[in-house]
């Protein structure tokens, strides 16, 4: 029964139903608002669980494809060369699908949003708006991971920007407006670069002809499949060099392709973030409400990595190869730079922010490897870091609620009063530093393994990050929970059920992924396999 | 080589008057003097129009510019109780920049004008210049003509609305 429904659209837009539902609940019914919002996040979560189980692991193709014409803009065809055609237009479709790479991220989005919704019980004011924006954000994030059309992708990507701006700016701490601004402008610039790259792609590789009833039409398409086809087929317009006599506005020179990859790298690098584009996210990490950071750090950063894989590597494998070394270097720099800085921070949230930078370096390494192991590692790291950072910020929220500070020097000995939370903190820290048995290890292992096959030296240098991770994670975690405890915190209450439930859930997933990684590896394996077969054949040709 | 005929002499004298009037306007300090000198420019211009076989335009020029407009300006000056004198310029940099800008502007115009030559052709001012113009106005240019009537009405209403004293 479920199979016939447009399951992806249902997942993506079910949060909007929640928004509508919330509209009808009066502002002062805080309890009902929270309950309804959390329930609304459960719908996509359950659906995505079903999706995950129903997903066919034996194929690497796109699944659950939904396609609907959306924007179909006719263009002026008064020019000599265009008149003979039936029509000339550009079109963006509403086109959604998932493969093994996006599936886990869809699930992650659903899971972490639910967790964040639970964590948001600490929010003190304007719950209604908060939850409405949260749900809107969720739709945007789902869309990003499902969209199969450049334009649709971009729209969803931008949609996430606005609710996030509000969420940071209204519910953050002291410097929230600055943080929101920095987030907006920085990511706006990233999106701007992405849009230019996308439109160049659409206006060259997106160009196609279609036959309908004996008449030919010309059109520009944003469909990834069309673009990929044109980019890879040697006799497409995109790959036909213009000569003195024949103009070809659809030609993409190798230099242009190189530049396009570079632009995509910058565009998604801002989101990822890649050094030196990372400074915006520090502010977000420290100033936004922890439940917002859960989503930000847990999912939004992954959109950068996802985009880089989906559009950078998959559309430009040859250019990615040219870029592999710089990518690896950037990855190593990210890892070490983030780690060294995390080590010197005095504020816990900043430690986590820099650790995110460090961890995203691992994703870059996995991508730079350009092999199955590396790519698998990159995706694992995306999921794993999503879970871990969400958990950590969940804890930050709960701790801040009790101690009113996140300065490491003022914290200490909390294991005495809040042993449960400190235990979870320890687990999260251990997962973050890549302890085997927890999710962080698998991704680290795979990413390094992948890179080691191609660039052993870079991988070896990057592996130093494993040591540094231990240093900064332990420093922070132990400063919080170990050592003597100040007297005035003795009456503190350990996690309430509503806090403990998401913590345990996240720990469970972290453990599951660490102990039985196939749960993620299985949907991933075929996709990545097929993908690399395609890449190698296409690069050969 | 320029031939020195009567027309040129007339042009030369009139243009001296035109420029002289304008320059005087710029350099006078008393506002009323300025208006008078500019009226002189307007009248000299109408002389030039006569030279150019545009009698009707010359007539209108005298009527509107030298007449109506100068009077209007004097009224304007009276009604705003002007300070009589232009002070010494208080913005030397500004004035200098304007001077440089205007000179450059003139340089561009002069350069372009001097590089151009017009083939020239026969000019038929018509038996009766006024009649010819009238015919054109009522036929070919009737639409802008009608619009100008709207424009004048609007200017009329607008000027009244703006300039009339509000009773408190």
């Amino acid at each position, binding site marked *: 029964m479920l199979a016939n429904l447009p399951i992806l659209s249902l997942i993506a837009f079910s949060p909007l139903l929640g928004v509508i539902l919330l509209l009808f609940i009066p502002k002062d019914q805080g309890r009902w608002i929270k309950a309804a919002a959390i329930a609304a996040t459960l719908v996509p979560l359950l659906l995505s669980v079903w999706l995950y189980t129903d997903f066919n692991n034996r194929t690497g193709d796109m699944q659950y494809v939904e396609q609907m014409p959306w924007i179909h803009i006719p263009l002026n065809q008064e020019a000599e060369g265009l008149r003979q055609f039936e029509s000339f237009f550009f079109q963006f479709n509403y086109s959604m699908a998932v493969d093994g790479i996006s599936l886990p991220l869809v699930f992650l989005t659903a899971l972490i949003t639910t967790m964040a919704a639970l964590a948001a019980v600490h929010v003190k004011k304007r719950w209604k708006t908060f939850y409405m924006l949260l749900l809107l954000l969720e739709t945007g994030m789902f869309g990003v991971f499902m969209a199969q059309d450049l334009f649709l992708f971009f729209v969803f990507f931008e949609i996430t920007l606005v609710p996030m701006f509000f969420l940071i700016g209204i519910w953050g701490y002291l410097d929230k407006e600055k943080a929101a601004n920095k987030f907006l402008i*920085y990511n706006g610039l990233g999106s701007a670069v992405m849009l230019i790259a996308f439109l160049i792609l659409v206006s060259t590789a997106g160009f196609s002809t279609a036959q309908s009833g004996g008449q030919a039409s010309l059109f520009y398409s944003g469909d990834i499949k069309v673009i990929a086809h044109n980019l890879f087929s040697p006799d497409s317009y995109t790959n036909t060099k213009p000569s003195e006599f024949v103009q070809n506005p659809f030609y993409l020179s190798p230099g242009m392709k190189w530049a396009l990859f570079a632009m995509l790298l910058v565009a998604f690098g801002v989101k990822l973030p890649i050094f*030196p584009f*990372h*400074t915006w996210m520090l502010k977000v990490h420290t100033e936004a409400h922890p439940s917002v950071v859960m989503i930000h750090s847990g999912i939004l950063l992954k959109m950068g990595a996802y985009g880089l894989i989906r559009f950078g590597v998959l559309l430009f494998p040859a250019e990615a190869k040219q870029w592999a070394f710089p990518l690896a270097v950037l990855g190593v720099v990210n890892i070490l*730079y983030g780690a*060294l*800085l995390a*080590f*010197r*921070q005095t504020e816990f949230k900043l430690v986590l922010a820099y650790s995110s930078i460090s961890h995203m370096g691992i994703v870059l390494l996995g991508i730079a490897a350009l*092999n*199955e*192991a590396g790519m*698998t590692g990159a995706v694992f790291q995306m999921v794993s870091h999503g879970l871990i950072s969400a958990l950590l910020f969940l804890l930050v929220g709960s701790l801040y609620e009790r101690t009113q500070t996140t300065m490491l020097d003022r914290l200490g*000995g909390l*294991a005495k009063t809040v*042993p*449960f939370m400190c235990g979870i903190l320890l687990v999260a820290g*251990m997962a973050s530093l890549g*302890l*085997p*048995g927890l999710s962080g*290890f*698998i991704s680290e*292992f*795979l990413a*390094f*393994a992948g890179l*080691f*096959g191609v660039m052993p030296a870079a*991988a070896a240098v990057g*592996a*130093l990050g*494993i*040591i540094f991770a*231990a*240093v900064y994670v*332990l*420093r922070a975690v*132990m400063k919080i*929970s*170990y*050592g*003597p*405890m100040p007297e005035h915190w003795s009456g503190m209450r350990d996690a309430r059920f509503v806090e403990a439930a998401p913590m345990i859930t996240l720990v469970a997933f972290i453990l599951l992924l660490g102990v039985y*990684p*196939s749960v993620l*590896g*299985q949907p991933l*394996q075929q996709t990545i*396999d097929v993908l*690399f077969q395609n890449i190698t054949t296409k690069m050969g040709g | 080589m320029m031939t020195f005929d009567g027309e040129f002499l007339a042009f030369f004298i009139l243009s001296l008057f035109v420029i002289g009037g304008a320059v005087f306007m710029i350099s006078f300090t008393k506002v009323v003097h300025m208006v008078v000198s500019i009226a002189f420019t307007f009248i000299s211009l109408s002389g030039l129009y006569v030279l150019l076989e545009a009698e009707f335009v010359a007539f209108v020029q005298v009527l509107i510019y030298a007449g109506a407009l100068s009077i209007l300006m004097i009224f304007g000056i009276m009604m705003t109780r002007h300070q009589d004198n232009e002070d010494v310029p208080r913005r030397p940099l*500004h004035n200098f*920049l*304007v001077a440089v*800008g*205007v000179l*450059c*502007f003139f340089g*561009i115009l002069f350069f372009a004008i001097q590089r151009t030559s017009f083939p020239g052709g026969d000019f038929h001012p018509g038996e009766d210049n006024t009649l010819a113009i009238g015919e054109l106005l009522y036929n070919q240019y009737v639409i802008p003509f009608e619009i100008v009537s709207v424009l004048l009405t609007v200017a009329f209403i607008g000027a009244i609305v703006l300039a009339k004293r509000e009773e408190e």
Partner: protein
Amino acid sequence: MVSVYSPYAWFIPLFPLLAFLALTAMGRQMKTAAAGISIIAAFASFVLSVLIFIERVGGHIEDYTWNGFEWLRIGDTPLRMGFEITNLNALMLVVVTLVSLLVNIYSKGYMHGDERITVYYGYVALFTFSMLGLVISENILQLYIFWELVGVSSFLLIGFWYFKPEAKAAAKKAFIVTRVGDVGFFIAILLLFWHMPGHALDFSSIHNAFAGHEIPSGVATSIALLIFVGAIGKSGQFPLHTWLPDAMEGPTPISALIHAATMVAAGVYLVARTYDIFLASPAALQTVAYIGGFTAIFAATIGTAQNDIKRVLAYSTVSQLGYMMMALGVGASYAAGIFHLFTHAFFKALLFLAAGSVIHAVHRQDIRLMGGLGGKMKITAWTFAVGALALSGIPPFAGFWSKDAILAEAFNHHQGLFWIGWIAAFFTAFYMSRLFFLVFAGKPRSDDTAQESPAVMTVPLVILAALAVGSGFVYPWIGSWLTGEAAEEHANGIVMVLSTLAGVLGIGLGWLMYAKQSVPADVVSSRWPWLYQLVYRKYYIDELYQKAIVAPLRAVGTFLRAFDDYVVDGIVRWTAASAVNLGKAGTRLQNGQLQTYGLITLLGFIVFAAVFAGRRFF
């Protein structure tokens, strides 16, 4: 012959795992049941281990391997998990489960009354699980996983008294220093992954590949050395030994369990387990031998100058582990090293538990403040003496046989290392006698009302003492059993005499200095104070690390923080500011003066005309 019990070997780690889960779920409740649960689990594991061991002792039984669990598949490469039972790990299983069982029992007494005893037992169970998992791992990646888990459990146990700043620091140090080694091990696995045929990581494939010389020797050397780096970290070899003595901040039974008997032995076990790789690279083997030998003598000298009862034992552990490494390095088989691991586990656990008994009684650890405890704590004193003698290598105690095996190997293959080992043995005997005489002999140096510990603590001591005496007698047999090859000739007479001599000399000197006091105790410190200081301060290694690694990294971190703030973000802010300033400059022109506006318009026209038209004319 097919094994009956081996297919069930996975139960061995499972019991403690279940215990751990149960105890964790309890939180801080059910303090009384905690010990019971953990002890039962340890006992169950022990019984099964013994069954497997006995079965293997009894007859020639094939190695049992199961790897049916596909953990993850990367492309076409499956990563599998499973377990394997060989003679080597059957022996290890017995050692680990036995020591663990005894420590569990002992702890019931030692930790009595601690409010977090449930947590304590949970951690112990986790540790036991990890260690057992490590031992039965079927491939090197799985081994690495448990290896890290062992590290983390030890971190948890060292930092068990989390509110003590020293414990906190020690736990952190232990984790981080061993992590340095782990990275080497990690890279070794990556190298293996790419160089093994079919990316196989299981031990039998490794054996086949390296024994069959399929891997170039350069690669083998790198892999072996990197694995050894891991072992250095875990087994406290120079230069990564610094964490081990600090780790004594944990509860004493933990010191016995982890930092003496089992976990630190993991490094030795790792080298033994991957011995094929080392055999493929003579250079790597030599490195192992030298590092081991150096560590042995280096730590032994430090041990002579320490005043904390547990620290002395800790340095002796480091020294003994050095012995084992040396044995692995010089020989052509891992038998001698593993044999010493086997005996050392018992007597070192014994020594620690006895020391724990002393600490339990007097609540202090400084040996200069003890004395005359022999009369008050008879069982403890006697069992400690047994352990000390075993450690000193006095026949017929277990330590004598295993040490002799090592020295014999060294004597045969590398005379220089033999003498190093010999001197180390002398120092070992010296500091053990110093320890014994200062603690148990003479008069009390403070007014303690020490009492013998309860039976729950002394019984394990006695059992271990028995093993410290008896376990050496497997000497003739164990080598061939472990390696499956015919044993070399052993029992070199000269070596036996020399090693006994070293022990006797050391004990004699200690007796003279600390019991009879005919030689002044400050004989060295008064004459060569710098030498005493050097040894007392552990050759300033910690300080060196602090200065050479920690401080520069800190400085780099501080520098990068400024860099991030002022340069990276500075550029961002500068860019933003320049956009704003551009706007400001623009609005400055917008000064309300209409003639300025006109001027701007005029100049705008001139610029446009000049730029776009002017270039066509000039």
